[in-house]
């Protein structure tokens, strides 16, 4: 098996362990967009401290990991229009849908939530169509 798939599986197990700790410990769903969005639109200010400490962990651990992990390329574009358009769509979309890859995907599908499954089908479908359009039809990315 390709080494990337093995790292993917190991990383996935770590992600799921984080979600399991958050669920069993705090009784909360580890959804990145919900945790961030609740701070942005004030809807989650009553639990602001645990949201901020969670995000601090997400931000800090990679800084430690990259000290000994050499696969740290992001390949992120430096096209500002592309970044702003993508960021706006991700921000608006995840908050309208009430979840993203971690909340609807990882946490939702693992409890066989219909909403999680439907959301995941639609964001992967829309992502595939967008990719096909931007890369193969328009040749933009």
């Amino acid at each position, binding site marked *: 098996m390709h080494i*990337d798939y093995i*790292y*993917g*599986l*190991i*990383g*996935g197990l*770590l*992600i*799921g*362990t*984080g*979600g399991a700790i*958050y669920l069993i*410990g705090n*009784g909360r769903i580890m959804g*990145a*967009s919900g945790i*961030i*969005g609740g701070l942005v639109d004030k809807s989650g200010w009553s639990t602001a401290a*645990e949201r901020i*400490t*969670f*995000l*601090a*962990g*997400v*931000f*800090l*651990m*990679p800084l430690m*990991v990259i000290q000994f992990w050499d696969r740290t*390329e*992001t*390949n*992120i*574009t*430096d096209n500002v229009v592309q*970044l*702003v*358009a*993508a*960021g*706006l769509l*991700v*921000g*608006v*979309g*995840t*908050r*309208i849908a009430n979840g993203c*890859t971690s909340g609807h995907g990882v946490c939702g599908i*693992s409890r066989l939530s*219909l909403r999680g499954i*439907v959301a*995941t089908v*639609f*964001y992967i479908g829309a*992502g595939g169509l967008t*990719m096909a359009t931007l890369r193969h039809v328009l040749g933009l990315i």
Partner: protein
Amino acid sequence: MRNIIAFVAGLFFGGGLVVSGMTNTAKVQGWLDVFGAWDPTLAFVMGGAMIPMAIAWAYTKGRTPVVGGSFPAKPDPKLGRNLVVGSVLFGAGWATAGLCPGPAIASLGFGGSSLWIFVAAMLGGMLIAPIFKAQLEKMDG
């Protein structure tokens, strides 16, 4: 206690995102690029993450969270416009830059200014999302 649990969960989540390769936008865009050089790594990440999560959901039955309170009830399976429209917008943005909210925070510390531009736009999107969400919910009646 809630904050320590959240921080530890965040450490696992952030570390897992880097190890799995999900902070590499080329791998995410590769997953969505079904008409190009398709990269299945993301399926291994999602699959790996669902193992601890499925165990955690099974564990929650008949129990309460460590900090007290109750576990989140399974959401109403009602599929409204907001779930579909939001997921489609999110998927389009996800493909455009190869980033969703979790990996964006995880690579914020080492990915350079592009990540900060993306996250700023994402936060802006999250700020204006409630306006659109209210409209969609009104249409659902």
